[in-house]
């Protein structure tokens, strides 16, 4: 009898573990909602999350935690590490450190998978996405986005020996163009009639072109400058063609993403205006060669 009891207990343990696993996830919703009348009426899971964000101050949450978790990817010159160093630096990283200091908290940089940035924010595994994020409709629909702080445009990357075929193109029809899935580059390539080849990361697009699987790639100009040419595996690739100009569009803007309804956005905008006024922004931007791209007004 004892043995059966022990077995049942062990099973319950493993089952409850599996339940945490999300297979039975919707059940979990009931337990935390019980002591909060505002969320018991909310039918959808996302609604519960949003209401939670509205009622509490996100600034207070971060200050209580004592650490601002900044979601990044390794992206020079925004967030990167120098050879032999373990510290995140870059324009975004340095500004994030200053922002955390203004909140009176520590800063912790967390590398994330870019596709899951919204889930990372909503599940509070990070507090902001600060990594040269282009502001578009999808981003503003899912996050609270700061005022734009930097500009950027998309470029076409192609094999250098075929430069003559690509320069001055105004349409990409009939070309296989590698893009990062869900990026602004994907929208631009589609708008110009390209057959897009979506891959996981901007960096993977260059492998597509190098290996000849795609004719060209569309990525951020900052990234193209960093990743192609001498000293890289992609010395044979070249880039040109401002796709934003080709479409008659304005350049893109970079912004910082926060949880929907978070008051960290206001804290950020206030901090940024002050940092622009006292020259911090221009000083740090100049360090990383972004003095032309950064927005100062």
């Amino acid at each position, binding site marked *: 009898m004892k043995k059966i009891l022990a077995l049942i207990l062990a*099973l319950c343990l493993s089952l409850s573990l599996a339940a945490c*696993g999300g*297979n039975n996830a919707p059940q979990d919703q009931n337990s935390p909602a019980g002591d909060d009348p505002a969320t018991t009426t909310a039918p959808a899971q996302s609604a519960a999350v949003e209401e939670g964000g509205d009622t509490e101050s996100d600034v207070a949450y971060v200050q209580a935690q004592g650490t601002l*978790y900044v979601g990044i990817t390794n992206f020079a010159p925004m967030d*990167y590490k120098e050879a032999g160093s373990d510290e995140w630096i870059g324009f975004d990283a340095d500004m994030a450190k200053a922002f955390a200091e203004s909140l009176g908290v520590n800063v912790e940089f967390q590398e994330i*998978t870019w596709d899951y940035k919204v889930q990372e924010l909503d599940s509070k595994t990070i507090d902001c996405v600060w990594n040269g994020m282009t502001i578009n409709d999808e981003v503003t629909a899912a996050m609270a986005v700061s005022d734009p702080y930097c500009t950027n445009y998309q470029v076409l990357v192609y094999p250098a020996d075929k430069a003559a075929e690509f320069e001055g193109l105004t349409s990409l029809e009939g070309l296989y163009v590698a893009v990062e899935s869900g990026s602004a580059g994907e929208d631009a390539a589609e708008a110009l009639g390209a057959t897009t080849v979506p891959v996981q990361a901007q960096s993977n697009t260059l492998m597509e072109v190098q290996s000849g699987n795609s004719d060209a790639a569309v990525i951020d100009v900052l990234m193209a400058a960093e990743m192609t040419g001498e000293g890289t595996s992609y010395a044979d690739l070249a880039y040109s063609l401002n796709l934003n100009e080709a479409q008659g569009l304005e350049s893109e803007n970079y912004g910082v993403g926060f949880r929907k309804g978070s008051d960290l956005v206001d804290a950020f905008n206030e901090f940024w205006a002050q940092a622009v006024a006292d020259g911090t922004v221009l000083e740090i931007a100049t360090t990383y060669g972004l003095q032309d791209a950064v927005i100062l007004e």
Partner: protein
Amino acid sequence: MIEFFQSPVTQTILTALNQGFIVTLELFFVTLIGAIPLGLVIAFGSMNRLAPLARPTRWLLRRRGREPRWFARALIVFRPIQLICRLLVWIVRGTPLILQIIAIYYVPGLVMDGGTPWPRGEMGRMTAVCVAFIINYAFYFSEIFRGGIQGVPKGQQEAGLVLGMTKGQIFFKVTLLQMVKRIVPPMSNEIITLVKDTSLSRAIALQEVIWAAESFMKGNQGISGLWWPLMFTAVYYLAFSAIVTMVLGRLEKKLDYFQV
């Protein structure tokens, strides 16, 4: 060739890959240590014959003097623990591991009010991935264990009973030993798959060896646009698989001394 390995760029890359591979190894060993005992518990669960409704149903049938029809028969063979275990085996084996990792890491935080229950930062990701791997592999292992236990001839247990051994003694000294011998080849298969499956953990940005290698494609520590590190990770996996194969081969030989 030697110059290539001595260059500072290669040194930086190899250091990063080594760090990544340590994370891979941590995940591998934690999974193995956690999943084997849990798998045994689940194997018992899916062999459990507890049928709480069998007795009352039979009693009722006897009192009324009826033959069991389909409903009564279903009640007699209703084994809840076995049913739940086999249902979970189906769910865990029937969904991709990458989906389970993503669900375990993100869904609790998205559904619960206070945000994620995992610790924040790198440690939380490691914990979540370990839990996902332990659960997934425990259910795979449980089926291997079940096959191993059920494959031991019933005569062995009967012989134990004749010799006056208790049920516990029979299990540990007769069945378990013979099961271990039988399951080594299929377990080797799973364990080598596990070595390579660890790379799925980068779905939630755990910085294992493939993640580290990919970082040099887009740029890390001033090195960018290199794709050879990604291909080079194969060396790590192959070397480790070779060690695992050797260890398991030796274990198989050691267990060769008795024949059934």
